[in-house]
């Protein structure tokens, strides 16, 4: 059985992965709460699943696809695509710079 204590350090790492900024008091709060939650989750180890396959699709479907056709009806006009964004410029969405480079990303 796998007793886990979730440390504030781990919480900080998780917050980074989850793109969340936490205050210090939140970090400690969550560390305590997660430890309790994981205790509950760990009760699952009481069940032997060594011979059981995981369920990833609950209603038994498979091979669902769509034909390769353009559907212009659902393409958003540029104005609508940009409408709800806080920051746009000449048809683009705008974000603060992350990487220090003036070159076009990719290609």
């Amino acid at each position, binding site marked *: 059985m796998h007793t886990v204590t979730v440390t504030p350090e781990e919480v900080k790492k998780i917050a980074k992965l989850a793109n969340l900024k936490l205050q210090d008091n939140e970090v400690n709060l969550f560390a305590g709460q997660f430890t309790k939650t994981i205790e509950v*989750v760990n009760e699952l180890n009481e069940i032997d699943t060594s011979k059981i396959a995981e369920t990833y699709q609950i209603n038994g479907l498979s091979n669902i696809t769509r034909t390769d056709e353009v559907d212009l009806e659902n393409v958003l006009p540029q104005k609508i695509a940009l409408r709800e964004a806080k920051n746009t410029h000449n048809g683009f*969405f705008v974000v603060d710079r992350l990487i220090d480079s003036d070159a076009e990303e990719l290609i």
Partner: protein
Amino acid sequence: MKQLHELTIKEVLDGYTNKDFTCVDLVSHFQKRIEKYNHKLNIYLALNENVLAEAAAIDNEIAEKGITRPLLGIPFAVKDNFLTLGIETTASSNILKGYKPQYESTVIEKIKTAGAIILGKTNMDSFAHGSSTETSDFGATLNPWNVEKLPGGSSGGSAAAIAAQLATVALGSETAGSIRQPAAWCGVTGLKPTYGRASRFGIIAMGSSLDSPGPIGRSVEDCALITEVISGKDPKDATTSPSPVEKYSENLYASDLRGIRIGIVKEYLLPDMREDVKNLILDAADKLRLLGATVDEISLMDPKYAIGVYTVIQRSEVSSNLARFDGIRFGHGRSVLCEETKRRIMLGTYTLSAGYYDAFYKKAQAVRTKIVDEFKEIFKTYDAVIGAVSPGPALSVGASKNQPMFGEMEDILVEPSSIAGLTSVGLPCGFVDSLPIGLQITANQLKEGTAIKIADCFQRHTNYQVFPDLDKTT
């Protein structure tokens, strides 16, 4: 003589046909009630500003063509996680404050095609994370039976809208209990369709492998009529079932339940459950026997394991589904997310992270198989299983605070059926402490007809469809 807000779908349609009232009359009536009571109960977050014009257009249609659409002029309260064109949609989170959807959910398209009219969007737990409606960024909704109590969640606003009679019918969604539990705490009827029966396209995602949109209404009949309209394969949702949609209303008005085999789940009569709540469930079982069904005590896996399964799968999927809320293309920055949402995102990120995936996510999905298989087995012999929806009546405002697993704990009795993607009707079966108690009638996947037949028959032979007098309770 019934008042306008007390009418069922059928009664509204008949009223239009008989020219007893117009759609504008009905909508205005609800508008006045909303004006009077909404601020006391905090049910609606946003109202449809166009509603009177839409009602007038419907009246024209009725005058010209009569009633040719199944939900023509029926006023709906819609949970705020359904994207609705022209009405702000927030999922009760500040991160979407002011968000005007750029497209509409398939289910909303369907009810509109059927002639429905939307009164407004109802309050919910923020991003559906909860079973109280208390995690909403816009304040808790209060229970119309007792304003010191919670309405349940996450579709608390929709359930309260029906209990408070501020709409004829409502739409909610269930990931694990979010239709049935608020319906139970508010004393109204809710139907959770089979996973994949109705499209999730255009509903703000919570648990992708669990979310099921469905109706909340005054009666099983109304829920059945709505389920007929919203169900069906959607080319925009790859998880919808290709199974043809049955005429669920044909299962209504059964004179008895002879030949129906029902199992009452021993483990759902929780050891710490109040005697009076247990008795209501056992009472319900007796009533079903009187109607001709056989009701046997059956045994299923301890529902406590469902909590672990549900917590891991749901929070893992939540952490991923909320990644798109980064403030770039819509909405505000992630710093305004509420504590419960942050908590769930973090836990879900943790359970999927390297080193923990096998121990948590994979393990949970394996136990899920066990739960699924167990139900498959039981449905070979039984048509439905029953139990309480909730361990007890509505809890007090504030009960969910500082409870990091409040929702998952409260929903212990409904998580197994949600995890297995089953269909279930939640309907009132009595009162304790002057608060409603709900019964769940759960059937196998795609057996909505069976659940509806049993629930409807029970409802017609009992007297639990009652509604609070808001002038007394608020």
